């Protein structure tokens, strides 16, 4: 597969991910990730590596499962009533000339709505995509949120 041809496939994966999240199909979302994945949001938007820095979240797959299980438990009270989200992403670009494993940068805006309160959140995504059994999977999703280092109301929904 030539690098250029990866773009539609990567774009399609990002779109599928966005819809799964906004549809609250969390199990389906989880299936997009590799087993040794990382899903994270640094506190410092300029942080390069989150390992020895503080993050808003820094989840391996097991903790992503915990996160989803908690949201579905009925006792994560910031999600009672639930948050609804609607996100768009754009300015999608492949880094490294589209060499695999792919690094995909994009910008996002998300409206998170709960209990009459509507919040506009935005920032940048960086996805690393690996090919497993012919299909692209997310091995890392970094969410750089504008305001991640500022006081935030709870953000227990998924980015």
């Amino acid at each position, binding site marked *: 597969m030539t690098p250029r041809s990866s773009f539609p496939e990567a774009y399609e994966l990002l779109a599928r991910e966005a819809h799964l999240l906004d549809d609250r199909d969390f199990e389906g979302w989880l299936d997009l990730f590799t087993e040794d994945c990382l899903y994270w*949001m*640094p*506190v*410092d938007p300029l*942080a390069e590596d989150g*390992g*020895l*820095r*503080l*993050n*808003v*979240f*820094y*989840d*391996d797959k*097991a*903790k992503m499962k*915990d*996160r989803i*299980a*908690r949201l579905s*438990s009925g*006792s*994560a*009270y*910031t999600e009672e009533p639930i948050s609804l989200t609607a996100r768009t992403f754009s300015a999608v670009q492949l880094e490294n000339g589209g060499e695999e494993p792919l690094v995909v940068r994009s910008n996002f805006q998300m409206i998170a709505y709960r209990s009459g309160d509507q919040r506009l959140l935005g920032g940048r995504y960086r996805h690393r995509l690996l090919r497993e059994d012919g299909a692209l999977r997310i091995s890392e999703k970094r969410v750089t949120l504008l305001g991640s*280092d*500022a*006081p*935030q*109301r*709870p*953000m*227990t929904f998924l980015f």
Partner: protein
Amino acid sequence: MHRDVYVDPDVFEAEMRRIFMRTWIYVGHDSEIPHAGDYKRTFIGTEPVILTRGSDGAPSVVVNRCSHRGAAICLLPRGNAKGFRCQFHGWTFGLDGELLGVPYSEEEVDKDELSLASAKVESYRGFIFASFNPDVPPLTDHLRDVLPYIDRFVEHAGDYALQVSPDANEVVYDANWKMQLENNVDGYHLSFTHQSLFGVLQQRTGKQPRYVTGSSDGEARVEAFSNGHAVMDLRSVATDVLRERLGIVPGAPPPDADLDAYFGIEGAEDLYLASTGPPVNISIFPNLNLGSINICEVHPLAVNRTRVVLRPLLLDGAPPGINRTRLRYHEIGSGPAGFVQPDDLEMFERVALGLASEDVEWIQMTRGRERETEVDETHRYSHVSDETPQRGQYRCWREMMDGDA
């Protein structure tokens, strides 16, 4: 307790004057400003201040307001500087607030008079406090009953010096600041507000974790002290729960790992288990909560709005794997996407929603009043689920609010 304590803007204004401008307020940890010229922008109540480290090594706290026309002179959360320059008309100030320069000044300027107002500063074991009250008693007198608990908090990881993470998890909620202070020593809410966390632990470990039950009369207890300070001491009751939590940390060593080999030092097990901090929460009236491995600053913004700043403590010189564990442990619960803190904030806001009722004026804070042990007027302890600490906080609150000012 009358609802006005949480909802009346006049009460809030009086609190800023009578409490925050009059007692010791926590402003930062030594490791946040380790070098000469380091500074941190923060607040004493709603008063904007800057904590600085002078060239002599001494910390100062000055008002973040140019003495000329009132512009804030420090906008960055932290940094290093030789001094501060107001960008409006170029006035310059030293790290201790001394007025150094007034551009185009042909008339005589009283530099003493126009230096930045400063607060009294004292520290205990790295915790820096400031007060705008020149007659405030010595800090160690103010903290006397909780000094052993602070010692225990500082010493929980042996000889390693504590290094506060420069990054912080910050949250804001629409309810009164005192909710956060009370909550740190509220053993009653744990099994209910945080049920979802215990659910996660149960799923991951196959065991039912519980800190507190209504009937257990183990060693865990809550305690109220002089000057509104309080602790929730979970002692042995919590040990298993905390160790189980470490197991769900991303990147945790496998259950059968040789920890010395895994972390590359001898005696790694103790250091690894210390990643949960001591099983005791300390509330230092009116704006500091210590618990787990966190320093939590409570910043009142308005009667119904509060900012909370949480920073985990790392260990200077410890293996990176240990500090990674501490960071990941902190992230499980804390911050706007944590598994613990958001549910607390939710409850604070539900209280604010409920207190909209003007018809019902009083809230209950009486649990354990009959069974608590009264050591003296201010020092009492009781079952871990009792509201003894909160009553202690409000005894101090009332005393300060009733006093002359």
